[in-house]
């Protein structure tokens, strides 16, 4: 009985007793959700174009951020470093297309999936060789991103808003909207959907597979760079950051692997869900539930809606 009270009553009473903490939890959940959505977006772009889960998205986040910080450390001005990092991500997209994807056209999806493992381990080794394994500080102020925080006095307490989090949310929203429009309203976007459906059919109507793949991998690279800047500003840029990318997996299960709006909604559900669960129910089991709670939500969704909230229902005629 006491346990039921702890599960079903006490957390809600505490929400009412400390509304400032509830607002703080919701804000943190929103920021995390937006950042998860950004990571998931990188996966969605490549999945839409090739039907492949890009295992390398996490290391692309680290590699992009390290490239930016690395150029700056060499004395290149911050904005120029940013432009050069974008250039490197373009080169990476071209290289991946030429060296990995082009020879694997029409191969089963699992082959392409395994190829992304290869890209991952190559980028880890190459990144450590070039940049070393030590964490680097993100050049937040040099990129003219806001720092500091504001304490808002609300509901008898206070809510701390980090300025970088506001910027992260704003940049993520703009980026998601831009990519959403680009891929749904332009010719490239329609071509991309055709490629996702069938490589052969797309080739037969004159769509350049190579161009699409470079475009999509480049877009995913830019998303990775933005994600790396935002996560790096919150902590550091280190190879440990790539693990966070796997938080995108439950987001994708929720939102669907092919839906940009799904990535946003999925990211927000996971962000809010894990923060609220950790804060209000975590203490019942000793804390630390955040790391697996997202997967529980995803599993529940898998049972009832395997294609995700916005994913396309797959109907195969037998």
């Amino acid at each position, binding site marked *: 009985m006491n346990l039921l009270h702890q599960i079903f009553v006490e957390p809600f009473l505490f929400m009412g007793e400390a509304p400032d903490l509830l607002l703080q939890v919701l804000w943190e959940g929103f920021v995390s959700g937006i950042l998860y959505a950004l990571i998931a977006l990188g996966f969605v772009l490549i999945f839409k174009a090739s039907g492949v889960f890009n295992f390398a998205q996490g290391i692309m986040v680290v590699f992009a951020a390290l490239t930016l910080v690395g150029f700056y450390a060499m004395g290149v001005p911050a904005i120029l470093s940013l432009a050069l990092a974008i250039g490197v991500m373009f080169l990476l997209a071209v290289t991946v297309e030429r060296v990995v994807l082009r020879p694997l056209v029409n191969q089963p999806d699992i082959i392409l999936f395994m190829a992304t493992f290869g890209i991952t381990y190559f980028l880890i080794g190459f990144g450590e060789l070039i940049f070393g394994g030590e964490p680097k500080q993100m050049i937040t102020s040099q990129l003219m991103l806001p720092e500091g925080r504001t304490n808002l006095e609300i509901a008898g307490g206070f809510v*701390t808003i980090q300025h970088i989090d506001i910027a992260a949310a704003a940049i993520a929203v703009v980026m998601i909207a831009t990519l959403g429009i680009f891929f749904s309203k332009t010719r490239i976007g329609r071509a991309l959907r055709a490629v996702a459906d069938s490589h052969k059919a797309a080739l037969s109507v004159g769509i350049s597979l190579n161009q699409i793949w470079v475009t999509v991998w480049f877009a995913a690279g830019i998303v990775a760079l933005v994600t790396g800047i935002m996560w790096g500003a919150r902590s550091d840029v280190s190879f440990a950051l790539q693990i966070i990318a796997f938080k995108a997996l439950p987001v994708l299960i929720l939102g669907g692997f092919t839906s940009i709006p799904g990535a946003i909604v999925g990211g927000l559900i996971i962000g809010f869900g*894990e923060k609220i669960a950790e804060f209000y129910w975590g203490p019942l089991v000793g804390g630390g539930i955040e790391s697996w709670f997202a997967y529980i939500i995803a599993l529940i969704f898998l049972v009832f809606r395997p294609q995700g909230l916005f994913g396309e229902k797959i109907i195969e005629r037998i």
Partner: protein
Amino acid sequence: MSLRLYGIGALAASVFAASAAVTAAQAQDGIYVPLLSYRTGAFAGSGIPIADGMHDYLTMLNERDGGIGGVPLIIEECETGYDTTRGVECYESVRGNNPVVMNPYSTGITLQLIPRAAVDEIPVLSMAYGLSAAADGTTFPWVFNPPVTYWDGASVFIKHVANVEGGFENLAGKTIGLLHLDAPYGREPIPVLNALAEEHGFEVKLYPVPAQDMQNQSSVWLNIRRDRPDWIYLQGWGAMNPTAVREAVRTNFPVDRLVGVWWAGGDEDARAGGAQAAGYKSLNFHGVGADYPFMDDIITYVHERGLSRFPRDRVGDNLYNRGIYNSMLIAEAIRTAQEVTGNAMVDGADVRLGLEAMNITEERIVEMGMEGFMAPLAISCENHSGHNEVYVAQWDGDAWTQGTDWMSPLTEFVRPLIEEAAQSYAAADAGWPERTEACP
């Protein structure tokens, strides 16, 4: 085509065999000291300066003195990535070269090597890490964890809290948080903190951080804000530490009430919090900075000869010095083993004796050029840690400073717990051998 492949395969195999033979042959010409290190992976930020410090001190002994007792040291690194499985693979790969001591540099790897040490007769030196109970030399004759254990560290933290709060009697009613990596290393201080809480009437709150969320700690710091602990003890590693310091600053937690274990005291850990991290504390058992006579030799014989990978301007960083301290222990164990046995070439069994006979006095510290760098240290057959003194270092915004005097752990409290835990460990393993090794 297949013939060509066979040719390449045969060539690769012969190169591999030749390199293995070279290492084995080299091991005959010197004292073989493998270093398990991690320069890659999520924990490289902490692992690199330590690996460089360990390497540079031993290299300095080779370059300056021709080794120890006239026998050169053969130093070989094996990359573990702070991964237990890879660490055990490293152990298996170096075991055949007759290493005189193993430095696992990971509590997880140490736990795996403890049962093997006696069988393979290779002592395990887990300097201020690993299994705290291994300080009981009667149960663990092949495992050493000087100068202090994690349990000693936790007791010094509580002692420091009591000093600041005006005495142990003022601890009652306080809340003390343990922010820890959710791994064997991070969980080590829990038993002693709970025991001390029972003794002094404070409450312990645990804040585990899974390895995958090391850089995603916002939830845990929300919990800290909810619970309002009076103090936090940080038992983190790798990217977890700078993130924790940064989050403490972000959430207005008073950084002078955030005290890291010695592994949370990297320069980069503190620097990540910016100017507002000034006041952050960390336990320490050696000096920081480069203003010591032995450091001049490291610069002259190692850095100026291009034998170091560590940036010259960072010599004196806390974790670089930590690696040096570790290698000093290795070197002193070998030197003592040579004295005890009368042999210049020593093996693992000899170095075990050397570790048990180790007594680094003030005079010896001066001889090593380490005055001001370390406190005297002694190990015995029963006491493999020594439960030596540590101090609380404090970050001034730019560098670590000595925040307190050297403090001894609450040994009278911790030692019985260690002996009890050692007996429990042996009892849980039906085949755990009784100590038969002689005392030097």
